[in-house]
């Protein structure tokens, strides 16, 4: 078998050294009642060509090359070819967690750059080396706020991604952290009156998202004002990282929990993605996950290493800030290369293009909410429901937006649409036509 680099004669030599006759002798000592002596019901090993073909077939059973207007936490953006050129290098792809700093400076240096760029983008002071994804970064941020404030209640806006809110519930259920949802107002933004009503000195964190799930920019500064008066921390969630190329970062946040999938991470039916947690310097010891720090080596040269490990599970065990061990290093590297390729001006231009595309499409439809939005918005349907529109579009090999009824029953006649630099004008015209508009 091509991944087993030993010949039978080598196996025999090695068995000789051990003092055994056959490989089966290696498990002879196991009691018979624990051994599995049957054959695994899995087909015989396949050739490389068969494997490639199998997945090619699976690919054709999916939408292939259809333009898509789906966003809702996962975004279609161009992936610069340099990304795969870099992450496919064996030295990055097949390397281990950089616990041995002397032979992992490549990984450590690029993570240090990643942490820096995340801070620059989000307006925060420190950032970790990635979380599993945006959805799990949210409960981790909530748990951080609970540790820091020593309070136990959390408020989360209904305009935060619905699946992220579900994950928060799962995480907090058994940690004595009650979670309450905040309504959104007519304009599609967080209802500040509802916030004022529910906010008090027992609340550890208020969690909002910007742009929110409806694509609208939240009033971060006003919310921060209200929240800080009670000593509560403000957690801001960002699911569309490209937005940060153009919109003011949430500098008023205490913690930013986000998703970097937009940065050259393929949508890949839901994962793997790269979550981030960024915060103020003073909370650095409460941040979960790995951190890379700058230091020197024995000769005085700059070097990097994992640091503040005493927060983590392998040392603190039951008192750890989190149980996270493996993170998303390779995915974070994709994002790092993306950020490098685009750079300061490129990200801005990319964001501007997204703005233009989405506003072109929105201009042809009737919107449910009237606030400023980035590259996503909620469109009202008229007569034809969202599912019917999507069926029509599918016949023309276009994937429409997300029918909102699935998460917001009160908006069941609405669809969440996203347009990025990848969407062409003619496809947007097709969508408008399917809505019955031109």
């Amino acid at each position, binding site marked *: 078998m091509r991944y087993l680099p030993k010949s039978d004669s080598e196996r025999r030599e090695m068995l000789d050294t051990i003092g055994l006759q056959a490989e089966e002798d290696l498990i002879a000592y196991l009691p018979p009642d624990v051994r*599995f002596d049957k054959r695994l019901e899995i087909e015989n090993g396949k050739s490389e060509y068969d494997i490639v073909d199998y997945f090619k077939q699976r690919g054709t059973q999916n939408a292939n090359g259809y333009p898509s207007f789906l966003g809702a936490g996962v975004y279609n953006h161009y992936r610069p070819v340099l990304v795969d050129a870099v992450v496919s290098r064996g030295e990055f792809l097949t390397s281990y967690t950089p616990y041995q700093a002397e032979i992992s400076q490549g990984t450590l240096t690029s993570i240090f750059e990643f942490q820096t760029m995340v801070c620059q983008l989000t307006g925060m002071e420190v950032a970790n080396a990635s979380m599993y994804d945006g959805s799990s970064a949210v409960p981790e941020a909530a748990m951080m706020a609970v540790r820091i404030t020593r309070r136990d209640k959390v408020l989360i806006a209904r305009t935060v991604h619905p699946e992220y809110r579900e994950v928060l519930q799962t995480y907090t259920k058994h940690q004595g952290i009650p979670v309450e949802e905040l309504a959104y107002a007519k304009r599609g933004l967080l209802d500040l009156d509802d916030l004022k009503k529910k906010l008090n000195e027992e609340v550890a964190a208020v969690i909002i998202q910007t742009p929110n799930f409806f694509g609208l*920019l939240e009033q971060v500064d006003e919310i921060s004002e209200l929240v800080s008066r009670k000593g509560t921390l403000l957690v801001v969630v960002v699911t569309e990282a490209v937005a940060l190329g153009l919109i003011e970062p949430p500098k008023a946040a205490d913690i930013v929990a986000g998703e970097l999938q937009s940065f050259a991470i393929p949508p890949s039916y839901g994962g793997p993605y790269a979550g981030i947690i960024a915060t103020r310097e003073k909370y650095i010891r409460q941040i979960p996950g790995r951190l890379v720090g700058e230091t020197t080596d024995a000769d005085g040269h700059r070097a990097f290493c994992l640091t503040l490990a005493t927060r983590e599970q392998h040392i603190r065990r039951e008192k750890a800030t989190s149980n996270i061990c*493996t993170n998303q290093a390779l995915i974070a590297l994709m994002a790092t290369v993306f950020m490098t390729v685009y750079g*300061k001006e490129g990200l801005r231009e990319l964001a501007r293009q997204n703005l233009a595309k989405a506003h072109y499409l929105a201009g042809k439809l009737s919107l449910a909410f009237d606030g400023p939005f980035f590259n996503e918005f909620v469109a009202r349907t008229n007569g034809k429901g969202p599912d019917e529109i999507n069926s029509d579009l599918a016949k023309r090999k276009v994937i429409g937006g997300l029918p909102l009824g699935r998460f917001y029953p009160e908006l069941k006649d609405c669809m969440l649409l996203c347009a990025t630099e990848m969407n062409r004008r003619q496809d947007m015209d097709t969508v408008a036509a399917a809505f019955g508009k031109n």
Partner: protein
Amino acid sequence: MIKKVSKHIVQNEPLLFEMSSPGKRGYQLPELDVPNVDAESVLGTQNVRPEIEEFPEVSEVDAIRHFTRLSTWNYAIDLGLYPLGSCTMKYNPRVNEVVARTEGLAWAHPYQSEELSQGCMEVIAALEQALAEITGMDAVTLQPAAGAHGEFTGILMIRALLEKKGNPRKTILVPDSAHGTNPATAMMVGYNVKNIKSNERGMVDLHVLEEVVTEDVAGLMITNPNTVGVFEENIRKICGLMHDKGALVYMDGANMNALVGIARPGDLGVDVMHLNLHKTFSTPHGGGGPGSGAVAVAKVLTPYLPGPRLKREDEMWRWNYDLPDSIGRVRAFYGNFGVLVRALAYIMAHGGNGLRQATLDALLNANYLRALLEPYYELAYKAPSMHECVFSDDRQAQKGVRTGDIAKRLIDYGFHPYTVSFPLIVRGALMIEPTETESKRELDLFADAMISIAKEVEEDPELVLKAPHSTRTRRVDEVTAARKPIVRWKAPQPTASLAAD
């Protein structure tokens, strides 16, 4: 004599921010085919950021050189053996990378209609089935993103089942040899942790267990084979004992590389376990992740699995959200699909028989190393080793040399260190797991290196204590990094200058 490596390519490569220059670019976007919009008018001036301060600006050439140079500073499986215990650093097959990039799969959006996602759903179904077969369990969820995430999912399910029975109970038992994620996870699910001492063979002590299992105990988290590489021979009795008291058994499957095709945890009484697809199933570590923590359960726990679950209806796959007893979601969407593709490709490449052969080769490699090193290093436990062997640094400690120093000297010989100082029950542990994808030649080179170091400890301990000597970076000052953490680059502050008269 060091046989394996000579001097490394050395580069002095600055950070991106230090080579940045305004106006340099590595991208070019297509022209807009729709009218441009003025951001300030559309968003409101206060919402538009003036710039991304200090963000780098480099060209495409700078970028590829920068990352390529950084890559040369890394050790990797493609370069040589990682003898890291319980990490199972095996070859990452390249065909896995190719198939993960299949266009219809890589660009699939999780909210695409089911009609347009049958290919993805088929892959998920196929992998769930293969992993159920391998573990001998009744159902599998592929939602968790990593092992620790899988542990969290598993303990949540245990709690849900016990709550349904009327009493979630209070405590989870964790052997003192367990990986740190185990107790950390138990706390996250609202349980107390009780550590139980291993016996003199490094295994769970049945007598100790009998004494501590009360009706307050919800479950036991066990690793099998355990973290000293030894099969828990009493596993059936352990599961029986726990079940008799109405408690459940969680198995940490990090060491599954020793069991595939040879023993099935489901057959032994385990109720729930996780698998690390980035260990046993060859998906790449990529410098720290991504992983995937598939969780397999016995029938009794299937109602509690995270949703949605796949169901087959009219020749099509559908997502079923109607799961009244489910613990809910542990993450958005369905799982690290890109990692699942790679794991399935690995299973397909080996096939049923092949997987078993891989396991036998893993055991052979570990025992071969154990035989070669036993004369020089103190074997921690005499019980037969499975896929990894554990030594202690007792002999070398007499010369003032500890496991961490030996590990650093190993780097001079061209190898990545083994797992240092874990498990905690072994004093000065050296935990070595070669995996099945190492050739005899690489193992012989490794053994030569370790034997040579053992001799150096006797004759010239300073050489080992000050190692590594040949790396681009000498020993790194982790103490200062922790005392004064600097976790981001900052632009150098302009120094005040005295005004000229």
